[in-house]
Structure formats: C-alpha cells, structure tokens
C-alpha cells in the first residue's frame, strides 16, 4: 500500500518527459555509434529513415498500412490491461480472427460483397474473442496465470494455421505449393483515399474504446476491477462476468485486426498473418499509458520505425539484420527508460517512512 501511494506522488510529469527525452537521445547516440561502425553516416541514415517512412505519398500509405494492425491490436490489449489482465496472446487472437474471416471468405464468397465483409468481421471478432475468453474463464474460475495461458495459446493458433495451410485448406490450384487460396474480390476490403478502409475502422475504434473505458458503466467496472479486486467485490460487481466481457472485447478487437490483415493486406490466410503485431502492440499500449488517443501517435511512430528500417536496407545496402539491430536499440532505450521511471519511484518509497 505504501509503495503505491509514493508511486503516484513521485512520478511527476516533467520528470517522466525528461527521462524519456534522454532515452531517445541515448538511443540515437548508441545507434549512431553502431551505424558508424558498419561504415555509414548516422545523420544520413536517420534522415533517410524519416524520408523512407514519410518522404512520399506512397511511403506514407505504406506506413499507415503498417500502423493499422498495430493500432487496432493495441486498443484491444489496452482493454484487458486496464483490468490488469496481462493479455499477451494478441498474436494468437489476430491469427484466430484471420482464421474466422478466412473461413467465411473461402466458403461464402458468392454472397454480395457487403454481406461477405460483414460476416467476415463478425466471424473474426467471435473467433478472436473466444481465443481470449478461454484464458479469461480459466482465470476467473481457477485463478490461472493469464500471461502463460495467453502466450501458450499463441502457439496453438499458429500451428493450427500451419496445419490448415499444409492440409485441408491447401489450394489445389497451387500445384502442390503449400498455400491457402487467395480470396475472391468480394472478400477484400475496399480502399478509401488510396489506403484500405482498415484505417477508418481503426480510428472509429479509437473513439469507441476511449468512450467505452471512460464513460460507460462496463468500462468503469473494468477499471475498478483492475485497481483492486476487493474493491470491485465490495462495490457488488460480478467479477467473473466483467473478466469474461473484458477478455472477449480485448481479444475480439485483436481478431478484427486479423480480419483486416487477411482481407486487405495478404488477401489470403498464411502463418505470417500476424507477423509479430500482437507483441509489438503490447509495447505500444504500454508506452501510450493505455490511453486510446496516444496509441494513434505511438503506433504511427512504430510503423515509421519499421517502414524506415526496411527503407534503409535498400537505400544503404544495409543487411536486414543490421536494420533490425537499429530498431531494437531504439526500442531498448525507450523501454529501458520505463525502468528508470519505476526505479526512482520504488527508491522513494523505501526512504519515506513517516511517524
């Protein structure tokens, strides 16, 4: 109890901003040394990373396409994190959402386009949601550790797609190549302003989640339960119901991201469908302080980092592994600074002892 009180008092906004600014400076410095070591001018590399992600209309579009799944998944993750339910299974939930959408896309492509897309979305939310409600139920019923269960279920989801890809769903027209058939046109999301409408869905979700968490009864219950189970119990809340609802919402949204990726980006289902977005989104949700509007900014920055990283590979002939190291170093410093924010807090907690 005492530690928590101190935590809030000690973490002043200015201090946080200072630490994070220093972290970014340190990141650029360390990465700069690394870039020098592989024989390039850091300033050139940095500027072309920015150019690579925002330098032309095409590049901006690519960056947005990469930001969409990150943003949507982060929104979903935040819904569970608000309840202190550590859902690190978004990767699997994206995959299962994509599976549900693909099932509809492959079976019922003959229906009108609107009907196909809508039923794909519903199927994705249900399949992803079920993948999240299972660990939610296990936790509510027997108090299992949700981090482990959600993590393990990622692998089950992934192997399930591998099985489909090599087995029952293998496209007979692919001449033995293990791939699932491409979707028909009716199952592909339309574009708006040159980018598939996933970005509109994402922005709508930002507003919806923001309102849900801050201005609805269910959202309030989720936050209270996240603060203290005893308080929720004391206030007469039905804890099991809240856990099931929040995990379904969290995973269902991740599932929707899977539908968007399968429909608009890969036009099919394959094992790369989530591509680590489920893990990256955890970082985004956390760095945004679980605030929906901030997630828009942070996921764009992450998408730019990914996009810029792939651009410098071609521009400077830097191998992919080196580009990955640059990304990783920047992430390491920014995330590492979180530790220093925490550490200061805990240190203060140890010293302030009254009476």
């Amino acid at each position, binding site marked *: 109890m005492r530690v928590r009180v101190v935590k809030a008092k000690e973490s002043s906004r200015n201090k946080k901003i200072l630490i994070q600014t220093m972290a970014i400076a340190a990141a650029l410095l360390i990465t700069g040394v690394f870039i020098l070591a592989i024989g390039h001018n850091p300033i050139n590399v940095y500027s072309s990373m920015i150019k690579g992600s925002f330098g032309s209309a095409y590049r901006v579009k690519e960056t947005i396409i990469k930001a969409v799944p990150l943003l949507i998944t982060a929104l979903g993750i935040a819904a569970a994190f608000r309840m202190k339910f550590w859902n690190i299974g978004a990767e699997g939930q994206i995959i299962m959402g994509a599976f549900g959408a693909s099932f509809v896309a492959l079976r019922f492509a003959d229906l009108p386009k609107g009907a196909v897309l809508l039923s794909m979305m519903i199927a994705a939310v249900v399949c992803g949601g079920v993948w999240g409600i299972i660990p939610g139920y296990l936790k509510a019923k027997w108090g299992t550790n949700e981090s482990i269960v959600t993590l393990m279920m990622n692998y089950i989801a992934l192997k399930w797609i591998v099985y489909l890809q090599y087995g029952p769903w293998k496209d007979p027209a692919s001449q033995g190549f293990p791939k699932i058939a491409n979707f028909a046109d009716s199952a592909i999301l339309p574009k708006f302003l040159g980018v598939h409408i996933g970005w509109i869905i994402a922005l709508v979700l930002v507003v919806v989640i923001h309102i849900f968490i801050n201005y609805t009864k269910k959202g309030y219950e989720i936050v209270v339960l996240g603060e*203290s189970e005893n308080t929720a119990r004391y*206030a007469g809340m039905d804890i099991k119901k809240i856990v099931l609802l929040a995990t379904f919402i969290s995973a269902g949204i991740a599932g929707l991201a899977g539908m968007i990726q399968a429909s608009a980006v890969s036009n099919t289902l394959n094992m790369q469908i989530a591509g680590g977005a489920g893990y990256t989104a955890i970082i985004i949700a956390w760095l945004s302080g679980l605030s929906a509007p901030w997630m828009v900014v942070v996921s764009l920055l992450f998408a730019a980092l990914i996009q810029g990283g792939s651009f410098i590979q071609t521009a400077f002939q830097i191998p992919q592994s080196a580009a990955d190291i640059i990304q990783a170093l920047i992430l390491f410093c920014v995330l590492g600074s979180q530790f220093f924010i925490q550490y200061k807090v805990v240190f203060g907690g140890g010293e302030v002892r009254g009476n």
Partner: protein
Amino acid sequence: MRESVMVELKNITKTFGTVLANEDVDLIVQKGEIHALLGENGAGKSTLVNMLSGIYSPDSGSIFIRGKQMNFDSPKESIACGIGMVHQHFKLVDRLTAKENIIAGNKGSFFTSGKEIEKKIISLCEKYDLTVDLSKRVQDMSVGEKQMLEIIKVLYRGADILILDEPTAVLIPQEVERLFNIIRRMKKEGCAVIIITHKLGEVMELCDKVTVLRRGKNVESVDIAQTSPKHLTELMVGGAVDLEIQRVKTENKEPVYEIKNISVMNSDGLKALQDVSFTMHTSEILGVAAVAGSGQKELCEALFGLVKLSQGELVFKGENITGKTPREIYKKGISMSSVPEDRLGMGLVGSMDIVDNLLLKEYYTQKGLFINRKPLKEKAKELVNRLQVSTPGIHHPVKQLSGGNIQKVLLGREIYLEPDVLITSYPVRGLDIGATYQIYDLLNEQKKKGVSVLFVGEDLDVLLNLSDRILVLCDGKVTGLVDAKNTTKEEIGMMMAGHTQETIQNKGGA
C-alpha cells in the same frame, strides 16, 4: 546528574527528499527512567528512534550514549552500544523456536553451548519476571508471547536502553498490565526505556517523563507529575481540543437486523465465525471488541453480503436476506453501508478522484449504458465542504490525500447513501486526533438519525464510551454481549481472551 544520562539527542534533523521528518529535535533519557515519545501519526517519532537504533543516520545533530558521542552506521553498532529496539511488527522467524530466535544473529564462539545459553536466558527471565517456553516455535505463539520473546531477545544482547514502538497496540488489557510490570522491573534494574505511543492513558499510568513531538519538531518535555492528558493532547495537536466522547442518548431502539447462528469459513476451510447470533437495533452503536483476527473482518463482510454463510440466517426487518449479494440487497430497497478496514484496497479506488469514488456506489443506479458524472460532481463538492476534506480539488486522486481525509471521503460516501445499517471497521485507525473525533461525531450523528451502527474498534476506552452495547468475539465465537454502561475494561478483556460472559459473572457472584 550528568552521570545518569543514558541517551542524549541534540538538534537532530532528518529529511527525506523534501519532507522534513525531524527538525532540531532534542531528547534526554536518564538511567532508570521510562520516557514516552508522544505525537500524532507523522510527527516523526519512528524516524527519531530509527536514528537511535542505527537504521537511519541524521542529516545533522549529534547522538550521545552515556555521555559519549556516537555515529551509528548500522543497527549492529547501535546494538553493540546497548540499544535494543522492539518493533511494532515483530522481527522473528516463524519456523524457529524461541531459543533459536534469541541466538540468531548473535556473535559467539563457533560452537555454542546450549546449556549455557539456556542458563543465561533463565536468569534474565528471573531478573525481569519474564516467561518463555524456549522450545516453542514462533508460529505457535500468541501475540503476547511473541512480544515477550522480542523483549528477551533484546535483553539477551545486553541492551539497557530499550525502545518499544507502540507495544500495546496488539495486546488485550491483561497482557498490557503484564507488559507494564515488566517495564517497571526494567526501570528498577536501571534500564532506560523509551516508549512510542499515542495512548495518553498509558503515558500517564506508566511513564516518568514525556517528550511531545509535533510535525517533526520538539514541542515540550515534561514530567508526568506536572501534566494531564488534556494538556498533552493540546501539545500534540497544537490547540485546545474537546476530548469528551459522548454517548448520545436516543429513543426508539428497535430490532432491525437479526443475525441468527451464522458460521463462515475462511479461505483455508477453517471456521472464521462460528454460530454467531445477535440483533442490531436502530439508533444504536453496537461496538465489537476482539483481538485482531478473531473473525471481526468476516463478520463485517457477512453482514454486508460479501461472503457466503456456511450456516445461519440474516434477517432484515423480517425479510430473509441470507445469501444475497450487496447488489441484490440494494434492489430490495435496503440500504447497507460499510466502511471496510482496508480503505484504499477495498473501500475506495486510490488512483481515482473523489467523483469517481462516489460513483462506485451509485453508477449502477443510473439508467442506460453510460455514466453521468454531473450529479456526483455536486455531491463531491458538498462532501468536501461539509466534512472539511482538505484536498486540492474534487478531481485529485484520493490516495494522495492524508489518512484522515481518505477516511472522510469513504465515510462521507457511505453516509450519503442514507443507510439503514452502517458497518464500520476500525474507522479511526491511523487518524490524527482531530480527524478521530470528527469521525466519532459523524457516527453519533448517524445514530441520532436512527441508523443502526456497527463499530469494530481497538481502543477499549473508546468502545466503552461510544457504544451502547459491546459484542465480544474470540476465535470466531461470541463470548459476550454486554451493556457498555455496566461493564469494565477488565471484563471485556477476559471475554476477548475467551472467557464467556456467564463464567465471569459466576466468578464475580461467587
């Protein structure tokens, strides 16, 4: 004169970050003196003695022990100097026996002779009139036994300057008397004893001298003979206070909530409450006295509908509400309020502001899916004004408020629900005197309004003065339900220790 000074602190200053915990504090303790260190929560008492026991070192000022200036870098050096501290939360190893706990951490030859040690302990016990079962494991000991062991441990290390931090907080009256006798014995043997406390009655009864601290500063050091509880309170608080706890007279006491033979299991499957029956009345404060962990927490939760009963019935105004959740009870039109012991972990959401905390008990009465905070903002402002909550604003996180203000927000919210039954668990624990009396006034006000109040308290004097009747629990069973006007502290203490009302009265009669 100079010879007999055991401890002298001069101009001690200690800061933690921006918080000034001690400023220019002086303290002189003589040989054979029992010295009370008195002050409200946060006055800097613990900080001061922690510097004496080597846990902290002062920013400035000096420490003299037996006239010699000392500079403690660790508790070890302080112990070597003959200073022994008995902490409020005992520092014992549960799995070890009493003897092992006494030996642990002591210097000695590689092989220690068990017999010799035992001899030394036994002679210590005789000298100070202590008792201990050396082969008993700490986990099997009562709180009183553990404290005794802590004292022996300290004496065994050769301490003749003893510091006791709130030693009576966990004891029943008989144990307190026992402890006082031991302390007087120490005084006779020439030890210097420093007691941290905020219970004035104990200071007056036991101590020779008292030093009062307020907000980290020395207020005054006085001889007990030249002071009174009223004077000491004024020194502590820094102004005149009304120390009377009044039992408000009320009419219309009618049965309202019947508790019939209820039993509750705890999480280990053991009976936390066993066959408890009593009736709560309107316009009444029903006190509950019990040693910590005797089932009072389960009782409060059971009455509020938070735990399942394994047996028994709860009947509110003729309506059976056994097994109903708080929400279901509310839907029946019964308003039940509860101030739980764990304020921030159960009663409130620490990171939320006052408005959102008021919402906790009201959001479900609003229509629709959305939350309307507007009416609650008005309520929050009213609460802040009426109960004089000192806060930067209604949108400030409640966990950043002081203990007294946190409790005002919690109690205020529960009172605004206009309850039929108000269950309060240790409502004044950790609060300063001003806030404490304000809380008592609020409880009395509720009683006057006709509310049936349950008051779980720890200070028996307060229980006796404030309550109409007192329910005593021991090991989850009711050992007595007595009229507060016709009972004594000793009688309640006996019942807290497990003697039933009947046996006590029989003894009294015979």
